[in-house]
């Protein structure tokens, strides 16, 4: 009986590999290649004992800990220790994203588009497709772990041992598998592909936030986060295996749960039957704007909620920083000396959060704009455009929503950060400072939005590049200074051109230039969109 549920799995695995013959190697190259390539890069920049000592001190900054993870092996802080400290959580997140996209693509998305209908009529077990997807994910993560494990040591960097590398790779692979299996569960309980990916990405962000709070204070929170667990391997320092077993155990548990759910649920349905909706269109649903808003409603609400949560969470650890600094002698010295001239720790932290929150808020903004393209791809737009709505109008509607949403998202995340900070801090910070520091990033967000419209206009098949550039831009400003990239490289990121407000003085020139660039991009995008074929 059990065997029959899985029959045909191996043929489906081959089919998945065939379908993703470009995609899987590309992801592996990106994730593993990046992880490996950063080792010599970091070594060049921080290889000397002095530089490492400097990094060791900076890494103890609670803002840094919240950002990248806890510090281990301080008594002998070599490249290996620093690399794990700096990169493991972030790379595990990247691996998580890879797994989330992979699993939704082969399960819920295929199901939603009716592609599994015929497959299920063949002598293929009911769970074969899910099993094939999971097994392929296991292979993919294993290959990634091995590439990283054996790749990082080849440079012979001090402290980067083979055992440490293998554990580093295994931690990433195991965390990736947890996200793959958790995504499989979300795919069973949710009613649609969109909801499933939304839930999975939310889980990824939540895991990051939990470990941020856990690493700064409440350790237990880190232990229930897959990302927090990866740090606990202390790769290159303690080289503990137990977190990997815990992660693999969690992955197996999630996978079993997904299989159980998949067994009892009907194809095309969530665990809960779809309820009947409205009989008539609501008042909102009365034109292209209404339609677009109705379609974007969930994105707006969910991301609004996530951003508020994020703001509150970071706002509420603001005071922890003070106590942390009070207890730590080295930090007190650094604090007294000031990292940047005249700036306080809290200012540093606020400036950092503003970048982080702006990049976060840009994700849904791009999503809202690119909805124009996904509606087109799925053929829904055809019907709307056939009904006397012009392309310019459709474009304008989605652009308008994205533009307004960018401002609203920024406002609510700043306000929630500020509110939480005012509650926990003895001296409430000035709202004006927070507002200008945060809203400063709007022109940078608009450049990314402009890029999305340009892609829609000229390269509709490559709209994913907008997210890629967002990731790169974020990485450049978030990490670029630390890694010591030259200024011109950091300026390639729109975020890198924004005056970092509590730390630097306001400067309107770059803001206006960025706004101008974004206007040009949007203009071009619209022109391209008017002329091209809808496909």
């Amino acid at each position, binding site marked *: *009986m059990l065997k*029959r549920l899985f*029959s*045909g799995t191996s*043929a*489906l695995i081959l*089919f998945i590999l*065939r*379908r993703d013959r470009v995609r899987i190697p590309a992801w592996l190259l990106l994730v593993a290649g990046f992880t490996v390539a950063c080792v010599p890069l970091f070594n060049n920049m921080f290889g000397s004992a002095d530089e490492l000592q400097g990094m060791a001190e900076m890494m103890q900054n609670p803002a840094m800990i919240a950002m990248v993870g806890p510090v281990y092996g301080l008594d002998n802080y070599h490249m290996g220790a620093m690399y794990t400290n700096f990169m493991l959580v972030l790379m595990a997140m990247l691996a998580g994203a890879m797994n989330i996209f992979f699993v939704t693509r082969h399960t819920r998305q*295929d199901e939603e*588009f*009716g*592609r599994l*209908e*015929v*497959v*299920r*009529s*063949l*002598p*293929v*077990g*009911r769970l074969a497709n899910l099993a094939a997807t999971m097994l392929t994910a296991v292979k993919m993560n294993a290959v990634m772990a091995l590439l990283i494990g054996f790749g990082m040591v080849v440079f012979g960097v001090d402290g980067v041992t083979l055992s440490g590398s293998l554990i580093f790779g295994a931690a990433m692979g195991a965390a990736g598998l947890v996200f793959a299996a958790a995504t499989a569960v979300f795919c069973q309980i949710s009613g649609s592909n969109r909801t499933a990916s939304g839930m999975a990405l939310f889980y990824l962000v939540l895991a990051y936030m939990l470990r941020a709070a856990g690493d700064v204070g409440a350790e237990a929170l880190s232990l229930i986060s897959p990302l927090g667990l990866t740090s606990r391997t202390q790769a290159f320092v303690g080289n503990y295996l137990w977190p990997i077993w815990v992660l693999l155990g969690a992955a197996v548990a999630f996978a079993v749960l997904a299989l159980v759910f998949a067994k009892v649920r*009907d*194809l095309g*349905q969530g665990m*809960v*039957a*779809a*309820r*009947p909706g409205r009989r008539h269109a609501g008042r909102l649903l009365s034109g292209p704007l209404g339609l677009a808003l109705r379609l974007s409603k969930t994105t707006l609400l969910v991301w609004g909620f996530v951003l508020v949560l994020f703001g509150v969470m970071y706002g509420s650890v603001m005071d922890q920083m003070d106590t942390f600094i009070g207890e730590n002698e080295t930090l007190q010295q650094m604090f007294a000396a000031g990292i940047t001239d005249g700036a306080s720790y809290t200012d540093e932290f606020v400036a950092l959060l503003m970048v982080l929150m702006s990049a976060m808020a840009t994700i849904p903004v791009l999503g809202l704009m690119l909805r124009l393209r996904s509606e087109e791809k799925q053929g829904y737009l055809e019907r709307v455009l056939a009904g006397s709505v012009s392309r310019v109008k459709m474009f304008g509607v989605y652009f308008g929503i994205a533009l307004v949403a960018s401002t609203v998202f920024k406002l609510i995340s700043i306000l929630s950060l500020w509110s939480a900070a005012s509650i926990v801090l003895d001296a409430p910070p000035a709202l004006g400072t927070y507002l200008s520091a945060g809203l400063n990033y709007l022109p940078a967000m608009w450049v990314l939005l402009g890029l999305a419209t340009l892609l829609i206009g000229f390269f509709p098949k490559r709209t994913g590049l907008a997210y890629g550039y967002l990731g790169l831009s974020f990485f450049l400003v978030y990490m670029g200074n630390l890694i010591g990239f030259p200024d011109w490289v950091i300026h390639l990121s729109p975020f890198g051109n924004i005056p970092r407000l509590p730390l630097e003085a306001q400067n309107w020139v770059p803001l206006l230039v960025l706004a101008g660039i974004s206007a040009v991009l949007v203009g071009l995008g619209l022109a391209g969109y008017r002329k091209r074929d809808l496909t």
Partner: protein
Amino acid sequence: MSIVSVQNLTKRFGKFEALKGVNLEVKEGEVFGFIGPNGAGKSTTIRVLLGILQASEGAATVFGKDAWKDAVEIHKRIAYVPGDVNLWPNMTGGEVIDLFTRLRRGGNKSYREDLIQRFDLDPSKKCRTYSKGNRQKVALVSAFASEADLYILDEPTSGLDPLMEQVFQQYVHEVKAQGKSVLLSSHILQEVERLCDRVSIIRQGEVIETGTLQELRHLTRTSITVKTERPLESLAAQPGVHDIAEEAEGTMFSVDTELLGQSIGYLGQYGIVSLECTPPTLEQLFMRHYE
């Protein structure tokens, strides 16, 4: 022997009852038609038979095996074509056909080439670029290449052009000649009339009629146009006569098919000059049930 047997099948989606005690039987070697208005429950019944949906109540067996529990065994001998064929956008039609053949672990290679040719399909195109009819052909080719014992076809020709529709009908005749069974759901009544031995009509989740076309015809009325030497007296009083109208061609009326003989006898008394007798089309039969 019955190939498909559905007894008292009920399927609920949450509170909504899509099937309410459906009974159905497809015998070996017959082409069975399954018709009914939109949303009647045809596709739902078929998906229960395929083990894609689980029955809420009742039994569905194929080849004497349970449709849900023994799905894999059953599917080795089944070929299915849905009305809405969705395929992976960046795979070619040929790749998809081969995948389906491989998953079935069987199928006839030379037959496949023959089918591709006769359905005039270009298997090297990406599925993204196929038209609706061409996607349908991919499913039809892989179904007919499979040498199954039961073909389950859910509106298989929605989207085919008339020429391809003919090719399709030839194949159905061919598999029938080989003694295989077919369950065909369709809205194209001519197709059903031409191909099917027996028909079930389903409405709002209930089967309301089952039988051969002959039997079903008996349940409805035959249209008659007649000219007689002497004027017809008290036609309206005759049993089973309805809808009388005087036209240029003569008197037109319809009569319950089971009372047809009696009516002809009655007309004979008045000296028939010309008589035209039209059996009910499936469409008329259908309309009566749909209203």
